[in-house]
């Protein structure tokens, strides 16, 4: 039953995806983010890219015209920290270094939260493992191409990453009283159980990776000299760490306290790699200078706090403080629900620290794009960038706004009018399907129990 409904939803929504056509969106307030706002502006989309922007833009005769009078057009929203569309478990928690596992292998393109998030203007997610291990799994950037295959959702040209985690979550498995991924009595404790141990795991793994890197270098050097040595054994755990050291893979490090943020910077200095982003980083405001000097970005929550002791020194001014001190800051969701309205999370930075409207929206568009190394392709409305756009009925920084339409690569993936239009048909279809299944009078067998049902907590992620 559940599968049938999903297929129906997917099929109908897929039908709403248009061909890559030439589209002229006109009369909108265009929030370019990088080049100011254009009132009564137009944006021309050709071949999936932004072809022209301005007060007056001429379009070919066959262009589809979208009249956006009174509406606001912004770049598609980008979330630097998501767990959406991960099939099965989010944490491979049995090891303290699980760098061999890869999110790419478990993307579920039918996750309804993809569509729900599109409906909030989200177009790109950085999909990460959970925070059970000091070194977690490999991460991937996806475009929310609802209706496409898992493979087609992976964003072209976006560098993959790896998740690190510091603090309470990775050490929890080593504490005698708590174990959030094992069930049943007396779970086995797993090293590390302290922040010191977390540091050691990372140093140890990189020390191994350095040896491994040297073995391969030696092998390749000898091959180049015409020798025939035996190749080293391929190590799927160390390979991604070598990629990190060689700048081929980004490190996204879950962290809370200032001491552990500083610790990781020093380990990275010692081992010769860079941290691309600190994730959550609720005490980033205390070490903003060091984060900036390292060249890392900070991807934080707008206002989460107090859910655990390492989140008790959190302040919603964190994003503003770090931004004022020169760090590239983004606001992330870490939640299927929150990622549906990241524009409203951005609005909070205006209250908490006095960000300007553009600075606020940059935190969910161009800044996360910079952090993910995709700012040459997305994150702002500029000629030549991908036509990833979200149309809102009013200023997206207003709590009264709502998203109306979303395009990715010039294809329309969400249209609120169409969504509303198809609802009666859905309901009818559902009724018929239920009748066919000869549902019991209680009608309790519809749909899937939801992951956000009270009791199914998200705490393990954050």
């Amino acid at each position, binding site marked *: 039953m*559940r599968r049938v*409904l*999903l297929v*129906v*939803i997917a099929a109908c929504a897929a039908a709403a995806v248009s061909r890559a056509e030439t589209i002229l969106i006109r009369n909108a307030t265009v929030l370019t983010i990088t080049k100011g706002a254009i009132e009564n502006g137009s944006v021309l989309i050709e071949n999936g890219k932004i072809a022209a922007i301005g007060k007056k833009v001429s379009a070919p005769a066959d262009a589809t015209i979208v009249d956006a009078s009174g509406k606001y057009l912004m770049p598609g929203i980008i979330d630097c920290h998501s767990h959406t569309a991960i099939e099965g478990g989010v944490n491979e928690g049995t090891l303290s270094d699980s760098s061999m596992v890869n999110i790419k292998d478990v993307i579920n393109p039918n996750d*309804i*939260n993809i*569509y*729900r998030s599109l*409906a909030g203007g989200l177009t790109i997610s950085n999909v990460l493992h959970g925070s059970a291990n000091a070194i977690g799994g490999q991460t991937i950037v996806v475009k929310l191409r609802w209706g496409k295959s898992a493979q087609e959702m992976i964003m072209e040209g976006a560098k993959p990453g790896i998740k690190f985690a510091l603090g309470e979550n990775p050490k929890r498995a080593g504490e005698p009283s708590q174990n959030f991924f094992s069930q049943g009595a007396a779970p086995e404790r797993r090293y590390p159980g302290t922040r010191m141990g977390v540091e050691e795991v990372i140093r140890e793994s990189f020390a191994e990776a350095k040896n491994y890197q040297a073995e391969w270098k030696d092998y390749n050097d000898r091959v180049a000299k015409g020798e025939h040595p035996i190749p080293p054994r391929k190590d799927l755990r160390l390979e991604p760490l070598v990629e990190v050291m060689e700048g081929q893979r980004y490190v996204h490090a879950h962290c809370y306290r200032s001491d552990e943020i500083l610790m990781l910077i020093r380990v990275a200095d010692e081992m010769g790699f860079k941290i691309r982003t600190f994730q959550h980083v609720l005490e980033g*405001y*205390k070490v903003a*200078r060091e984060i900036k000097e390292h060249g890392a970005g900070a991807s934080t929550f707008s*206002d*989460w706090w*107090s*859910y*655990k*002791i390492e989140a*008790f*020194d959190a*302040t919603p*001014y964190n994003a503003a*403080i770090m931004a*004022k001190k020169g760090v590239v800051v983004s606001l992330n969701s870490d939640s*299927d629900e929150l990622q*549906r*309205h990241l524009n409203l999370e951005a*609005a*909070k930075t*205006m*209250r*908490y*620290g*006095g960000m300007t*409207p553009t600075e*606020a929206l940059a935190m969910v568009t161009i800044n996360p794009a910079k952090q993910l190394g995709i700012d040459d392709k997305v994150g702002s409305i500029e000629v030549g960038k991908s036509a990833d756009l979200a149309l809102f009925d009013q200023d997206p*920084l*207003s*709590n*009264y*706004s709502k998203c109306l339409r979303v395009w990715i690569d010039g294809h329309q993936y969400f249209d609120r009018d169409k*969504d509303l239009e198809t609802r009666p048909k*859905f309901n009818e279809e*559902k009724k018929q399907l239920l009748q066919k299944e000869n549902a*019991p009078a*209680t009608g*309790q*067998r*519809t*749909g*899937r*129990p*939801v992951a*956000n*049902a*009270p*009791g*199914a907590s998200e*705490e393990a992620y954050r």
Partner: protein
Amino acid sequence: MRSILGFLGFALMPVALWAAGDNSVLVRNVDVHPVTGADIRNGAVLVIDGKIVEVGAHVAPHGGVKVVDGHGLQLYPGLINAATNVGLSEVESLRDTIDLDEIGTFNPELRAEVAFNPSSEHVEVTRASGITTVITLPGSGGRGRSATASVITGQGALMHLEGWTWEEMAIKPSAVMDMLFPEIQSGGGRGGFAAFLNQGATRSYAEEERQYKQKLAQISQFFDEARRYEIAKAAGAPEFKRDVRLEAMIPVIDGKQSLFVRAERERMIKDAIEFADKEKVKIIIADPRELGSTGSLLKEHNIPVVLGKTFQLPMRDDDPYDAPYTLPNDFYKAGVKFCFGTFDTEFARNVPFEAAQAAAFGLPKEAALRGLTINSAQILGADNEIGSIEKGKVGDFILTDGDPLEAKTNIKQMFIGGREVPLESRHTREFEKWMKRP
């Protein structure tokens, strides 16, 4: 920076003349939004000894009363969050800092206010968003967290977010009786996902239904016991002995204290109404996730509703993506009286945004604001004291530079009982401290 300047600007404001009692104040040159009446542009509000005595376009200065120039700001009633755990919960993951969900099935004698920590950091943080009053509930509503979940978790208190002690803070102690209505645990019910994954362990529907009916019978029995207790007490029977647990039920069975019934699904709401009819008690439906066909039933029975978070995911995969966003408007259209709560501590301060999101998806803005002010006060039985800017009410209000339901609006000043309350918190102090780090 802007807010630092704001704080400084206020501190240096020359217009505040300190004289009479510090709970008397005249605020003028403000746009007054009384909620229960028409807006007054460039008006004034006079508070004497904590109570509002005059509201209007022209209010004469009152001898010795401090005058605050509103500088053209907006004046709204202090906002109300009608469901929180503020004061009873500090750090969610640390049990030592949590005083929720006492052991036992029926705990009507427990009172939230006696454990309300007036020094909780959440008090200052919550009021910084313009919230002057909260209901603090003794239960988390954490359904499915334990198989032996409580039915009656205790009494929720209506608390001002200002005061030296919980006694001073309590506007209406024992405002409501918090109750988790039982549910037939089938399909996607409470703890549904875990149950779904663990299907081998779930019981048959017939078995679930039998247990549910058993639980209902147990509840009825408890109410009967309370009634017999009341009769025995009134009759002054010689063998009568005081029982604090049953005594706490008397206001409920007398219809003087509302049962705050948490019922998420349509069937639970219907069952709760049927239960209230049978037991002849007053109820408030709390944290519903769907309206279903209960609209006319709620309206006919004049049962109000405290809505939970608007920012939620739809309950079912095939629900419309905006189902939680349109839910408040569903209740509005059905003519049901409702207000907003968050049923948590961490995000208690975001209740204005929960209401605004409903307005983005169809709820009239006025109804959203009423759901944070006058409706909340009426539903909680405190509308003679709070919920609007009216003569005779407590001087609870905020001065803002815009609509308080917008995140981009700054809450500039707050008055509780006519007394100015600082808007600093742990959060602003960290901001100021760490901005100074070289």
